């Protein structure tokens, strides 16, 4: 069994990531396709929300990954700050764009779901507002990471921001409990749910599928970043050799 540090070696990581990327991606796509088909055609409409409840099968995974993405950034940033391993910083930067996209998709699909269910596209309630804040925090992280890379920084400032931003996660999670919210309270837990099993079951497929899809995308982005870093290092070595030879 390889140690965590051996796995964090870029060469070992790439040896594992290359075959794993298409497996995660296509398994994710297959699970999403099955879950979406089942959710659109095989489940009954909700007695109150009627057919609009079918948006659940994409809205919940996007919310899960919007928050899960930031958890990944926070953990990777913490690992980078403690052990200074560059692969952790690459992972955090690779997660940022898909995480931001899923946070945005959560807001958009939620807004589309809100119109027939609540009669409004948007409401400044605790859950919606805190999720919007998370989206802006993602944008801030991406801008900071880009600026840090451009000025040749060591990645410490984006990592501190990544850890600090995780304070939003419990606020989003408990926003529907702390404030009288238009958004429904927590309805899906690890062991129980207030949603009827006949409606809930396709969600596990889309949830698993989007998670695998997300992991596949992150691996693609990490591989791209490592390849660019390797190519730039080679160019720097060539330039240094030419300068010494001149």
């Amino acid at each position, binding site marked *: 069994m390889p140690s965590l540090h051996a796995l964090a070696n870029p060469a070992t990581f790439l040896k594992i990531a290359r075959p794993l990327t298409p497996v995660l*991606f296509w398994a994710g796509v297959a699970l999403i396709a099955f879950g*979406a088909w089942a959710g*659109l055609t095989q489940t009954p409409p909700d007695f109150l929300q*009627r*057919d*609009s409840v*079918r*948006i659940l099968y*994409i*809205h919940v995974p*996007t919310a899960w990954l919007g928050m899960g993405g930031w958890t990944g950034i926070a953990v990777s940033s913490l690992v980078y700050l403690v052990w200074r391993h560059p692969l952790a910083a690459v992972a955090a930067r690779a997660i940022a*764009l*898909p995480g931001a*996209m899923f946070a*945005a*998709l959560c807001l*958009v*699909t939620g807004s*589309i*779901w809100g*119109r*027939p269910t609540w009669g409004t596209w948007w409401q400044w309630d605790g859950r919606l507002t805190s999720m919007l804040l998370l989206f802006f925090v993602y944008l801030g992280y991406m801008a900071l990471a880009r600026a840090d890379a451009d000025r040749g920084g060591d990645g410490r400032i984006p990592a501190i921001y990544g850890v600090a931003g995780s304070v939003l996660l419990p606020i989003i999670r408990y926003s529907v409990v702390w404030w009288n919210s238009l958004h429904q309270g927590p309805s899906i837990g690890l062991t129980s749910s207030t949603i009827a099993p006949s409606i809930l079951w396709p969600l596990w497929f889309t949830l698993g599928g989007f998670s695998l*899809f997300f992991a*596949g*995308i992150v691996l*693609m*982005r990490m*591989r*791209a*970043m490592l*390849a*660019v870093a390797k*190519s730039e290092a080679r160019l720097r070595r060539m330039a240094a050799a030419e300068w010494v030879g001149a």
Partner: protein
Amino acid sequence: MNHWPFIIAAYAVTILAGGGLALASYVAMRRAERR
């Protein structure tokens, strides 16, 4: 109110954004690894 236009819009936005991100990530990875 017919809910299906809302359902189709939500799924379409997700498919387009997810597909676009996957394609962009794949192209960026292939291009970087070929360099």
